[in-house]
């Protein structure tokens, strides 16, 4: 029996990634990391900046960096909608530091809400860990 499910990642410009048979996806959900396996209950959740880990059935692992997004899981089909996503392997170090610099500038901005500040702080953390590797 096949115990994979379908994964679709779309961004506004195009369908970024579509896989028929993944065994597990770990997403940086709003209230903590969440691993999704087959036959998970239908769920809608938010993403915060972080890494999406995709495990295929042949135990290949792929990592993507997302900035924000929504996930929907229904009938063994996981849709991730995000406006900004990069493949970790292909990502340009320079690009990472660009985003990082922008985020660091944003966090200085005093007229943002605590929630937004928290998200940006988190983003900086993730980006920093990326540049270290």
């Amino acid at each position: 029996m096949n115990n994979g499910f379908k994964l679709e990642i779309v961004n506004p410009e195009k369908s970024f990634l579509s896989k028929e048979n993944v065994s597990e996806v770990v997403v940086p959900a709003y209230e903590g990391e969440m691993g999704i396996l087959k036959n998970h209950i239908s769920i809608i959740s938010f993403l915060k900046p972080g890494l999406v880990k995709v495990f295929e059935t042949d135990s290949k692992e792929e990592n993507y960096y997302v900035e924000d997004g929504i996930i929907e899981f229904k009938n063994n089909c996981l849709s991730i909608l995000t406006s900004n996503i990069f493949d970790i392997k292909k990502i340009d170090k320079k690009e990472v530091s660009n985003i990082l610099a922008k985020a660091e500038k944003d966090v200085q901005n005093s007229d943002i809400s605590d929630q937004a500040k928290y998200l940006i702080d988190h983003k900086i953390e993730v980006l920093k860990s990326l540049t270290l590797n």
Partner: protein
Amino acid sequence: MPSLDDFRKRIKSVKSTQKITKAMQMVAAAKLRKAQENAEKGRPYSEKMNNIILNLSNSITDKENAPKLLTGTGADKVHLCVVLTADRGLCGGFNSNIVKKAKSFFKKIKSEGKSLKIITVGSKGYDQLKRVYGSQIIEKISFKNSKVANYLDAEIAGKKIIELFEKNEFDMCTIFYNQFKNVITQIPQEQQIIPLKSNEIKKNSVEDNYEFEPEEDEILSNLLPKNISTQIFKAMLENSASEQGSRMTAMDSATRNAGELVDKLTINYNRSRQAAITKELIEIISGAESL
């Protein structure tokens, strides 16, 4: 009667115009393919977004406390209309069709005694609306610098709309754009984005239960602003495909018309050349006869 030289000049000028229109047609055809591709690629995102919002709004039990972006302010006094047009002309009826649609909507609103605010996206729409509705235009956005429609631009426009909504500047928001059906048909559309049309919400009410994290209303209030940007982005994609399609057909018929004109002018030119020769001959013959 124009002289032979006049004809020659005229033919030359029509021919060079034809060259220009032909080149524009080919450029539009190439761009159309790209734009159409982009429009198709962009569809899954907006469809999925729509679906999620539908599911969410179905599961919201407490309609009273639902986010205002979904249910509206309860009033419908002030309408905000976002008119999306192109930045360039020479594309047939593309811009004027949107403007026409928008204008008839404006008239309807005015006759109902409601007030009107307009945001124009793309410079051509502004040019056509400023004479009559100049005082109602509160914002004009133009993306002349971006070659293709991109999401960041849409987000800028979306954020502006939400900002205005939060300041209670308007109660309802409608966007106008051309939907790309095929190369020769583009349908001007009006789409209400704030509040979301209730009949759309009711459509698929039979859905299984979802688990939400965080709570439904929190997701919704975060999602709805995004949806507005997404809808605008979709409209921009459809628009850019429509613009190229419209330009292609317009330039195609312009090229054909120029060809017809050249034919006609050439016949006239030959005729008057013949007439001049005949006249000269008659003169010579009658001169010889009189000797």
